[in-house]
């Protein structure tokens, strides 16, 4: 097993904390100012896509490396990026639900923001990565290999 591409698990959790704040704002706004909420959900979709296409240039990763990591002790263990990547794809799927579904039905923006918030919040504050948990289950039924 190689560990060269492994990541400090606190990086994704830091990112999830920012995502949870953004999605909570989007949730709140979706109940009053829908166009602004829609813009935030689009931004979340862009951020999820960015982390899949080029994780090393992602603003979350960049700010973690620049401002947070230097103040932390060395990580106790490193994490394999595969489940994390899958979790980002799940996040993107929910963002797309808001971006595409939101055109036709405004409540879908609220639903999208709520799901992203719950997943990001659990990841950031409880260390529970729902997408990562799904990864094994989905491999188990053979949808991805």
């Amino acid at each position, binding site marked *: *097993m190689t560990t060269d591409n492994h990541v400090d*698990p606190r990086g994704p959790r830091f990112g999830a904390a920012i995502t949870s704040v953004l999605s*909570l704002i989007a*949730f*709140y706004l979706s*109940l*009053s100012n829908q166009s602004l909420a829609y813009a935030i959900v689009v931004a979340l979709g862009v951020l999820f896509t960015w982390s899949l296409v080029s994780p090393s240039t992602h603003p979350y990763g960049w700010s973690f490396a620049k401002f947070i990591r230097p103040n932390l002790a060395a990580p*106790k*263990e*490193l*994490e*394999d990026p*595969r*489940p994390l990547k899958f979790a980002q794809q799940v996040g993107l799927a929910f963002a797309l639900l808001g971006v595409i579904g939101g055109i036709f039905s405004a409540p879908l923006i609220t639903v999208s923001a*709520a799901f992203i*918030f*719950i997943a990001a*919040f*659990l990841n950031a*504050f*409880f260390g*529970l990565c729902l997408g*990562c*948990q799904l*990864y*094994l*289950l989905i*491999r*188990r*039924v*053979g949808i991805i290999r």
Partner: protein
Amino acid sequence: MDSTIALSIALIVVATLAGLVYRFFRGRGHSVSGAQCIKLEKLKILKDGEEITKFGKEATVVLFSTEYCGQCPAVRSSLAKLEHRKGGLLFIEVDITHRINLAAQFNISQTPTVFILNPAGEIRFRIGGTPKPTTIETELKKLGVK
């Protein structure tokens, strides 16, 4: 209170409750009553390059891991230390990354998952997620591991 604020607070409360429930149940484990058995000749588990053919005299601890499991290395090292300290205890690890069919066979939904087996290889206790520190020792004591 403004209903949009109330709904936002409700969302935070729901997420927090979900997190607390998760934290409460994670790593607690439960006894297994049915006598599902581990068959060593089928699993073909290697340890230090040699195939395991016998269970531990008092108990066996099985760790199911994957290459992409973040918590597994820490659980592995603590179980290896435990094996070293206790007499009659065997610790084995099964990497299911490329044997995902085993996950379905033993109903494993997350890694790490830990099984505690009696000397006959019957599953007596199972823990999903990183085990709580004292759980394994308590269960091993019941099987006579000192």
